[in-house]
Structures are given as C-alpha cells and as structure tokens.
C-alpha cells in the first residue's frame, strides 16, 4: 500500500536512516496521504507542508526540511546563506561513504546536513543554522563541524546572536575520529562566542542525539525544544539493550527534559518565531534599546 509504504516504520526515530521520509519522492504523484504517527489520521502531504509539517489534527511535529525551516523563521528575503558550496569527501577511506553522500545530496537536495547563514528575525539580525534530517540523519562530520564553527566565528566577529535548530543522530561514523573531534571544535567556537557576551539560543528538534546533544545543542544560553522531540545522548534502543527493559513512555521527550531541568521551554513550531523574536528583543543591551 502506497500510503503505508511511504513511512517505513522504524522502532524509533534514530533507527530510521533519515532518507526514509522522502524515499518515495522521485516517482510518486505530488498529492499523497501521510498517516500521522501519533493520531493515525491520514493527512494530504500538501496540507502537511502548508501547516509547516505539523499535523493539523493532533499537532504532532514532523521533521521540517532545514531550508524551509529557516525561510519560515527568518524575515522574508533576509536570509543569506554562508558556506553553501562546502561538501564532504571520504577522508578516511570508509566503505560506501561516497555513494551515501551522493544519495543524501539527491534525497535532500542539499549539499550537507546543515544550512548556515545570516538573517533577521523580527528585524533582529542573527546568525542562524538549521540541520537536515534527510542528509544522513543530520549527522555531524567535518563539514557540519566546520560550517557551524565558522558560523559562530562570524557571529562573534559581527557581534551577532546565534539561533540554531539542532536535529541529528549524532557524530557521523563514516568519518571516524574526525567526526568526534568536531564536538570539541564546535564547542570551542560556542565557548568563544559566549565569552564575548553574545547570545546563543538552540531549538532542539526531533531527534537531537549523541554527539550533537553532547556538544553545541546543549551549550546554548537558552535551550528551547519542539513538542515531542526525542532528545538524548544514548538512543532508546541502546539503553533498552543495556538495561534489558522497555523505557517508560515519554522518556527522553522534550517535555521530560523540561521536567528534569535540561530545557528552558517547549515551544510549538507555530509560536517559535514570535518566541525567538521576543527573546532577541529581551537581550538588547542598553546601547541598543536606549539608542532607539
């Protein structure tokens, strides 16, 4: 069945390879039904897109393409992409990596798993990044690390805040230790930006895991999250294997993390732009608000 086949059912979101959401894309008609994983309603894919990938009935938040997300959040016409042409290469001779990169680029229509740039939100200029689930599950290799590092360096140089939408399965295995090192590299850039007194707000999306959770996703001044997002260091399957029991319902959800004190607020997608705008406004320094 076409409707069911569109979303293969992985046990959890980390098990999906990231390309499953759009696997059927090239050879199927435009209008498709998508079954909401939460309320089981069938939604027309165009309607889902128009509703910014949120189920109109139960408000389940589906993954949003990285570029659509930036265009949705930023003021119209304000986004200028940086390092758009940077692409990954097989640095350590890992089997099938090159072909995986090609497939990911085709599936996502993007050059890498993160899009970076400068934009304004509600008139406030900022640096912004957004991660792409359809590019190898948003995994962080050297290019993702380099792009994010450069963005924080640019933000520091220009005295701008950074708004970052994180969505990633973690470090990219196919680049071995070099991926792991990107955790330290991006952390260094975040730390330097912060030490200069600049604001960094992360918005943790579904899923944010592994080396991304354990680096720049959790290093923000303010951490927001999308409703229902899976946010973890170790994924649910790994934990279930370790402790040999099922995890309780809602464990590692955005709401759970807020309850445990690791997230400042859970903000629905429809309210994110307004929230970000207000936070940017509230972080104005005296020379900024007194000058107006």
């Amino acid at each position: 069945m076409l409707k069911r086949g569109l979303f293969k059912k992985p046990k959890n979101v980390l098990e999906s390879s990231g390309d499953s959401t759009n696997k059927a894309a090239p050879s199927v008609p435009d209008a498709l039904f998508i079954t909401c994983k939460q309320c089981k309603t069938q939604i027309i894919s165009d309607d889902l897109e128009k509703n910014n990938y949120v189920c109109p009935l139960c408000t389940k938040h589906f993954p949003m393409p990285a570029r659509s997300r930036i265009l949705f959040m930023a003021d119209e016409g304000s986004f200028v992409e940086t390092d758009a042409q940077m692409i990954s290469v097989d640095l350590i001779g890992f089997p099938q990596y090159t072909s995986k990169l090609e497939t990911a680029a085709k599936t996502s229509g993007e050059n890498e798993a993160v899009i970076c740039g400068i934009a304004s939100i509600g008139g406030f200029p900022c640096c912004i990044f957004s991660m792409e689930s359809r590019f190898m599950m948003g995994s962080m290799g050297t290019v993702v690390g380099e792009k994010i590092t450069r963005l924080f360096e640019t933000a520091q140089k220009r005295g701008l805040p950074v708004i970052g939408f994180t969505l990633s399965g973690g470090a990219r295995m196919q680049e071995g230790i070099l991926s792991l090192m990107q955790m330290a590299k991006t952390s260094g850039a975040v730390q330097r930006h912060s030490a200069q007194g600049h604001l960094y707000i992360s918005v943790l999306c579904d899923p944010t895991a592994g080396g991304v959770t354990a680096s720049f996703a959790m290093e923000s001044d303010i951490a927001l999250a999308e409703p229902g997002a899976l946010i973890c260091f170790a994924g649910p399957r790994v934990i279930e294997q370790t402790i040999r029991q099922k995890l309780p319902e809602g464990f590692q959800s955005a709401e759970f993390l807020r309850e445990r004190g690791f997230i400042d607020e859970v903000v629905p997608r429809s309210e994110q732009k307004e929230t970000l705008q207000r936070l940017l406004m509230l972080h104005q320094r005296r020379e900024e608000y007194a000058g107006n």
Partner: protein
Amino acid sequence: MQAIDRVLAARANDRPGASQFIHSIFTDFIELHGDRNFADDRAMVTGIAKLRDIPVTIVAIEKGQDTKTRLSTNFGSPHPEGYRKALRQMKLAEKFGRPVITLIDTSGAFCGLGAEERGQGEAIASSLTGMMSLNTPVLALLTGEGGSGGALALAVADEVWMLENAVYSVISPEGCASILWKDASRTEEAARHLKLTAQDLQQLGVIERIISEQNDFEQVFAELQETMYDRIRGLLDLPPGELMENRYQRFRKIGGTPL
C-alpha cells in the same frame, strides 16, 4: 598487529588501570570525591598529586581490577556526576594554577536511565566548553579504550597522547558494524576502517605522541613520568592567552581545510 588486536589489547583485563598509573607516575596522591550536586561517581577518580616537584590535578577513569571493583566503578563508564566531578576539579586546578593531567580508559559514557535523566549529554557538553576555556595546562593520556564522547569529555587538552595499544574512536567497532551493516560479525572490518589505532590517529593529526609498550609497564611508567614532566614544564612556560589560543587552534584545524 591488526586494528582489532589493538582493540582487544586495549580492553585486556590485565592491562593496568588508572590507580596503577597514578601511583606509579605520581607521588603524594590525595583523592577528592563528589560533584557537590548528586553523588560520587567511582568511575571517575579525581585528586591532587605531585609530578616530581609539580603539584598537578589528576582526573582519571577507572575500570577496576576485579569483579568487585569493576562493579563499583561501573566498568569504567562514568555517569553525568562523574563528568561534573571532573570539571569541578579542573576548575579548582585552574584556580590554584595547577596543570591538569587526564588518564582515559573507558568504553564510553554510561548509557542508562539514570545517566540520561541526569543529563549525560549536557554533562559532556559542559566538559567540552569547560576544558576549552581552562586557563591552565591540560595533558590527556589515553591508556586503554577511548570510547567516543565519554573519552573526548576529558581529552580537550593542549596535547593528547596515547599508549601504543590504546584505541580512540567515535564508536566501538561492534557498534559500527551492527548499526551500519546490521552484522556484528564484521567487527574486525569496522575496526580497520574506523582508523582507531594510535598510529592512525597520529597520522590524522589527532594525537601528538605515542608511548611505546615494547618494554614492561614499569618502564612505560618511568618514561611517562619523564616525558610528562618535560611537557608540563614547557606548557607552564607559555603565557596563558597563548595556551588557550593554541588549544583552540589544535581542534580548530581538524577537518578545517575542506577539499
């Protein structure tokens, strides 16, 4: 030796653990416990000792020597409170101008309910930014297994050294084989492709020095005392700003020249 042989050597039960390194290289060790927040993680051993005439802070991951101690150290997989304890001691080292030496031997940060609930990701992330901004020399030594983020959390250092048979990887070869190829029997192949041996990592510019294990461990310890002492003295001579700038650039350059 194949990559998988190094993995097995790094995990061998008779390999010296943190306490042996501490007591063989340093003197006057005083262990200091607890993260002042939740608990004392026995997987993370922290304290102050002397490296010849230099007082240093030691942060080490301990796997344990026998079943009983391994249970108490959770087989060397720290919880968030372990990383918070480590960071607390490193901040104290900075306050008192002591260099920090970390000894790393872990299959990874613990993957369990409590660890997730108490913010394993946040604890590691804080360690990364905390070490990056530490205004005192930091030297990291991988003595056995360097398992992913749980190892990196103690390896944001001015120099990272490895014992000849230590390994350092983004994921275990078993994990890599089962996730990528859904085939645990391809562990050996995964070990080879991950480039996790000391030699591979030196070629990739990820570590500065390999400590030979050709002789017995008594000699390894003696060599470590000698070389660590020299290096720490050199790092202490650097102006603080330069030390932190060099540390930032050390990581900044990895993967920084896209082709």
